[in-house]
């Protein structure tokens, strides 16, 4: 099993300026110190422009830090010769499912990353089939991507990353463009991979309800890491969320209203199951 205390990705005193915007007043990211542990599910919350996507790109070596450093499995992301290795360890899923599928059929797309690793064709075919089976995509292997639903496209993208046997999957708002069914599919897939295969996940999202199941939640605002902790601590802190223009998830918002109306509810309530439990308790008491 994976050793969850081991560090997988580490950012040290990370600063990033976008080229051409080098005035020191407003870097895209500044003073980020963050470690992602092996097998951890990390949710990254923050308003638009808070630097979430930039951070993901730094983790995947798509961007090089302006100051400080990022290490993936101990390899610095500015080590040109080992960038492919970093990208194999840290797969990335983007927001728009249409713009990340490269090939004309699903199987060729899943194979794309493996072809880049220059694996032998027989090995590629074996891995593609294994991954497709794992994610329930076998029946789609010969389909062209434009005939798939949004959720299917996103799962194909996940399969493409998974085939490379990553240690971590970075997801940049993977559900933002999906319908509710597609969103559920994608989240279930990722959570399953995290639990069963011990693959670490860094999940960037706008939606606190998607962060509820994370091991740790981090809030970014204006390029700074403003809060981190277990979801029940961070997500139940409504004043904090609201101050960054974020909403609490439905349970947290509802619990807050109930408390205003005099219900006696414990402070760190984020799961609907818990809320129901406490409401039933107080019902029985009265």
């Amino acid at each position, binding site marked *: 099993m994976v050793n969850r205390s081991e560090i997988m990705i580490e950012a040290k005193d990370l600063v990033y300026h976008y080229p051409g915007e080098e005035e020191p007043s407003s870097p895209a990211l500044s003073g980020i110190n963050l470690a992602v542990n092996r097998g951890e599910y990390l949710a990254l919350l923050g308003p638009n422009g808070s630097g979430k996507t930039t951070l993901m790109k730094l983790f995947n070596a*798509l961007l090089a830090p302006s100051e400080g450093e990022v290490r993936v499995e101990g390899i610095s992301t500015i080590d040109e010769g080992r960038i492919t290795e970093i990208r194999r360890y840290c797969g990335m899923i983007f927001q728009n499912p249409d713009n990340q599928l490269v090939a004309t059929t699903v199987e060729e797309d899943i194979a794309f990353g493996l*072809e*880049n690793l220059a694996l*032998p064709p027989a090995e*590629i075919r074996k891995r593609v089939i294994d991954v497709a089976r794992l994610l329930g995509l076998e029946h789609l292997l010969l389909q062209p991507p434009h005939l798939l639903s949004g959720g299917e496209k996103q799962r194909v993208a996940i399969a493409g990353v998974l085939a490379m046997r990553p240690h971590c999957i970075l997801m940049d708002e993977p559900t933002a463009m999906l319908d509710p069914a597609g969103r559920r599919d994608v989240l279930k897939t990722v959570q399953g991979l995290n639990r069963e295969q011990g693959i670490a996940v860094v999940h960037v999202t706008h939606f606190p309800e998607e962060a509820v199941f994370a091991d740790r939640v981090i809030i970014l605002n204006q390029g700074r890491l403003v809060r981190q902790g277990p979801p029940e601590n961070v997500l139940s802190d409504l004043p904090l969320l609201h101050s960054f223009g974020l909403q609490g998830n439905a349970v947290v918002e509802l619990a807050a209203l109930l408390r205003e109306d005099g219900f006696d509810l414990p402070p760190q309530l984020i799961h609907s199951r818990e809320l129901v439990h406490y409401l039933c308790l107080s019902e029985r008491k009265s």
Partner: protein
Amino acid sequence: MSRSITLGQYFPGRSLIHRMNPRLKILSLLVVLALLFSLQTYPGLAGLLVIVLAMITTTRVPFRYFLKGLRPIFYIALFALVIYFFFTSGGVVLLRVGFITVESEGVREGIFVILRLVTLVLFSLLLTLTTTPLSLTYGLGYFLRPLRYIGLPTEEVAMIMAIALRFIPTLMEESQRLMRAQVSRGADFETGSIFRRAKSLVPLIVPLFVSAFRRADELALAMEARGYRIGALRTRMHEDTIAPRDWAVLAVVVAMLVASLTLGL
């Protein structure tokens, strides 16, 4: 609509011709074309026409696809026929209208040229109808490989063409969406002169270009994130294997070419 878009002219099937290696298929076609132009006699040409018709039946591609492919050459054929009929002299005079005559040699040559053209198109269609655009792309890319030595990035060119094929349906969907959005706001793409209609396409083309550039940007990032690096060694999931029977096909067509040249068919 977008579901019915077929890329290229590929008609799926499992025949031997479908399964032939695309590189050797292209090469064999080139040899056949050379053969076609070396043939000088009716029996030789008729033989080749019979062969192509026989091959067509084994592919199980409906014949109307071939007829559709022949349609564009109809006027060329008609034009050639007229030229040959009226301007080639020799043989018996068959028809005389004023000072213009149609002579037997002209008729013979005219029909020969047209049959040759039809056979040529049928063979070409046989290639494009039984090979997926992607295989064709990679097949052609293979023959461009020598150009690497003069600095042409042939692997990358093949990748460019494959991505273009991937995005044609996506962009068509998008253009239809844009069109509907414009129509719903009162745009009119259907009436008026050609000039007017072309002009009304401008508000369609600009956003389409903008979005295509944005897509390209994101796609490039996604490709990089998945380890694609220009100039790096890549392998392919489906190896381009050449079966002995593929070589046999090429050998047969080369033999036919040699035979026709030596026997003067």
